[in-house]
């Protein structure tokens, strides 16, 4: 059972890291702010979710698991809000869309 959980951890965390990497590649390669923000939010939220999923078997008790999920939810909330604000600022700064 622990072997299955360890494999789950490794696979999920690796997939999460891959998504983070994809988001960073999007940040570096996309042409303008809005598409970069899009790449970052999508990839980073999914990446963090996969990392949290992979760390759930290693959390200490149900309370620790709940804390990990709360971290993911809070990061999503903060990320979504900041992305909206940045996109609005980028939109008003580059009106030639």
């Amino acid at each position, binding site marked *: 059972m622990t072997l299955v959980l360890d494999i789950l951890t490794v696979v999920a965390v690796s997939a999460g890291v891959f998504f983070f990497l994809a988001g960073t590649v999007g940040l570096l390669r996309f042409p303008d702010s809005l598409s970069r923000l899009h790449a970052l939010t999508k990839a980073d939220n999914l990446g963090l979710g996969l990392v949290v999923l992979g760390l759930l078997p290693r959390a200490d008790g149900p309370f620790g698991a709940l804390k990990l999920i709360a971290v993911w939810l809070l990061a999503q909330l*903060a990320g979504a809000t900041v992305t909206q604000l940045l996109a609005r600022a980028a939109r008003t700064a580059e009106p030639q869309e």
Partner: protein
Amino acid sequence: MTLELVFDIGLAALVLTVATWTLLARETTAAVIGFVAYGLLLTLVWVRLAAVDVALTEAAIGSGMTGVLLLTAAARLRATEAVANAEQPGATLRVVAALLCVSVFAGLAGIVLLLPEPGPTLAPQAAANLGSTGLGNAVTAVLLSFRAIDTLLETVVLLLALLGVWSLAPDRVWGGRPGPQGNVQRDGVLVFLAQLLPPVGIVVAIHLFWVGADAPGGKFQAATILAAMWILAQQAGLTDAPPVDRRWLRLVLVAGPAAFLAVGFLGFAAAGAFLAYPAGYAKPLILFIEAALMPSIAATLALLVAGPPARTEPP
């Protein structure tokens, strides 16, 4: 070369890269964002050094609060960027400064590499006396029992810094509200966040404060979260910064250090020395001091970020 050391080397390289980028960035706003990232990477370094309380404080105050402070200042000072950037120092100053910094680096690195092995430590004494405080977290015990006078002086220093910031107000807005008028967008995303997050933040802060007795946490980190929630509400326009001459505000600010001082002077009567706790009453007294300090420190931190008074009430 264990896996942990590989991770540490990667982390160290990242910290140095971000620090160098912060120094070399052209715009101040970019440099401040680099500084916030540097603070978060330092948080990871603190966790690697097995200092989780310090990691929490670094993330909250060192990176978060200082970042907000510097970002608002950079926004206000944006008009001076062009003028200041035109005055780059000459090559002589750069070379001399570089030589000085290389020698400082060599000296400090030499000291670090020549530290005595095994390192001298007070951990055994702290562990031996931990039982008398009733706490499980050694750092909290050091902060509030063994070196409580340092914490008392630190809260007073926070208040003095706030007095210094307030004294920078021009005469015509003396005692007014700090900071510019927030613009309220009734359905804005920031307003949504500012309505959703403070209850969560308050719960997390109280949890951090309570858990700090036996696990990493404590009142500084909790107070920073409370201050951040208040700053968020102010920036979303949900609440305005209070005028600094209000009596309730000044009472809240002073209540924490005053309670700490009162417990200190009571120590003369109860246990024979300043800030001595009578046997068996250590943990309740420590919790009382922490609970009194938390709102004061939160208000002080939020007001330090808000700045000196800048506008008065319309008559």
